[in-house]
């Protein structure tokens, strides 16, 4: 068991700047958790606190049920892959991999066995005698991962390991990490600013902003039920369309969303969530994902400004009043004329509309099963 628990973890720098506020996170054994957020959100700092590279200002950190706040990095039983690889340039690949084991006074034969085993897995056996500068970016990346692997750590920490690779290599390495994971079979904490990486790699995703955790959930959860405007805008490509000055209405005991004068009767699930959250009619920001827009029907209309044919789909930038609307329309479903300058009608399924409180920015239909079971108003438990 190598469970990692972050309890009220906090980082305050000497200059009184708080980089991380009160992070609570329980990472299950063998879980792959991804910390994601824009730069400066505190994700790297959180990871470095787990690694022991940053002093923990407040809170408790448990690895495998052991309080490790004051334990040196080397004794935490963790390994880390750095953004810049941080390979020792003066050592061969072999020595890079063996260094940590040597420091632990592992017998030579065992070191050799382990290093070769890992090199085999990562397919870098033929480079063992080379120095890092003689390797390509992808190969260096493998060595960096290998260096962490040889130690059989309880927790595998990765700090933006793919951000220095070009797009093609990044996709390739991402796939390799997924494959690797099944072989290493340990707990992973992975930091990235790239939401695609987060979605594809993580069992659960932790979305951070300005030092606060905004949402923790599976990729599906954070995509379907973003907790607030920030998460909604951060997760998903292209970015979700937001419509300002919309309203949440209640007619005959049913909630309706009014977008640009068009009323949408919300689905049962949304009704339930809104009831649960005791939502009152109010001004809202409505969110619709570009993938969820249907063109050529409905009562909303927009003028197309840019229309990009992407092969299997059209990527359309249109103007609907003051809002810019991005639509991703599969060519196969297309019936309307979507050339530039044309005005088209569009709509979406009411169940796919996200409703954000205009004041607080949080999602009125964010729905927490646990609270729902207890019949507690979810919205009241968090304020941003």
């Amino acid at each position, binding site marked *: 068991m190598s469970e990692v628990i972050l309890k009220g973890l906090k980082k305050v720098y000497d200059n009184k700047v*708080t980089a991380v*506020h*009160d992070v609570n996170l329980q990472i299950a054994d063998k879980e792959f958790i991804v910390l994601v957020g824009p730069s400066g959100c505190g994700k790297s700092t959180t990871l470095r606190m787990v690694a022991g590279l940053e002093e923990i200002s*407040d809170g408790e950190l448990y690895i495998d049920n052991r309080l490790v706040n004051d334990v040196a990095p080397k004794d935490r039983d963790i390994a880390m892959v750095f953004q810049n690889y941080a390979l020792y340039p003066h050592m061969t690949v072999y020595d890079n991999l063996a260094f940590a084991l040597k420091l632990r006074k592992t017998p030579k034969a065992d070191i050799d066995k382990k290093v070769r085993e890992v090199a085999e897995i990562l397919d870098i056996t033929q480079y063992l005698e080379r120095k890092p500068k003689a390797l390509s970016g992808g190969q260096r990346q493998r060595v960096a991962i290998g260096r962490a692997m040889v130690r059989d750590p309880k927790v595998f920490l990765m700090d933006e390991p793919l951000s220095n690779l070009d797009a093609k290599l990044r996709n390739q390495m991402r796939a390799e990490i997924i494959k690797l994971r099944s072989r290493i079979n340990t707990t992973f904490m992975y930091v990235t600013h790239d939401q695609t990486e987060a979605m594809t790699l993580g069992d659960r995703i932790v979305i951070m902003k300005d030092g606060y*955790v905004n949402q*923790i959930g599976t990729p599906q959860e954070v995509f379907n039920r973003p907790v607030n405007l920030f998460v909604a805008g951060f997760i998903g490509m292209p970015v979700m369309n937001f419509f300002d000055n919309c309203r949440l209405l209640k007619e005959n005991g049913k909630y309706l969303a009014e977008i640009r004068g068009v009323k949408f009767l919300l689905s049962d699930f949304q009704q339930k969530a809104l009831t649960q959250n005791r939502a009152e009619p109010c001004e809202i920001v409505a969110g619709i994902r570009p993938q969820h827009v249907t063109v050529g029907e409905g009562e909303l209309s927009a003028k197309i400004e840019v229309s990009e044919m992407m092969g299997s789909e059209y990527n359309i930038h249109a103007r609907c009043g003051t809002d810019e609307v991005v639509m991703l329309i599969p060519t196969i479903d297309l019936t309307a004329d979507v050339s530039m300058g044309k005005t088209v009608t569009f709509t979406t399924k009411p169940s796919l509309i996200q409703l954000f409180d205009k004041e607080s920015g949080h999602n009125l239909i964010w729905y927490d099963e646990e609270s729902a079971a207890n019949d507690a108003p979810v919205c009241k438990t*968090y*304020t941003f």
Partner: protein
Amino acid sequence: MVLAAKKDSGTSRTDLPQGPVFQNKKLKAFKENAPFLIMIFPAVLVVFLFNYLPIYGVLIAFQDFMPGDKILSDTTIWVGFDNFKRFFSDPQFWPLMKNTFLICIYGFIIGFPLPILVSLMLNSLKGKKTAKFLQTIFTAPHFISLVVLVGMLTLFFGRYGLVNNLVASGGGERYSYFLETGAFRPLYILSSNWQDFGWSAVIYIAALSNVDPQQHEAAILDGATRFQRVIHVDLPAIMPMISVMLIMSIGGLMGVGYEKALLMQTDGNLAVSELVSTYVYKRGLTGVPDQAYATAIGLFNSIINVVLLIIANTTSKKFSENSLW
């Protein structure tokens, strides 16, 4: 696991008492970093012995001190500023100040712009390999010792040096420039520059190599000639460095050392070659030493230097963004 993001409650925990935990953390951080103290210790010791102990020894400037006396004891005779007053009324005072100042100011006037000029010229060369090669040649004399340098000066300008050999072979009189008061400063300054202009240029050359080539390309497209690019691209790039070097030079305006001047001194040129520093050496360590007096003179000189440095730095801070501190 409910949402953890509570903006309002996020700050409340700092108010918690942190006493024992805090101290523990400090102790832990200290333990982890204690090896650095061991690594720095030898350097601290060396500086203490050879830099700070002499600063303490400066106290003898205010004493009636005989070699062998303890710096602080019951029998110490304090004389206040007597030694300084003696120096001000020393007939040597004005000649010393003048000699020291003149050799520094002439040295500065030639020695300060020359490396800047050379670095700009080297940077303007088309062949970068040629520039590198020339730079290697220009820096080489820096590694010649002062004894050899002054020796070479005698081999060129001494009574039996090259210049006199040529004059003599043409039927002229041999004439030692080393015995001549008028030749001391030019020889001193020109030889110093010969030795060090290349070395001093290195710092500017390094700064110039950091200039973005695109700036030059943009200037070319704007129609700038090579010379205009030197003035409008290269020179501004090394301006901050020039300011810093200027401050340092002004701080050293009275700080000329004794090592080279002592080697070049002859009875003939003593009227111009006796500097504050060489005078300190002679009064303090040769003949019948008057250490307290010599120390007072030395202290007076280094205080002038510190004051000059502070003035230069403050002025520079006021008029530009560049300063040493």
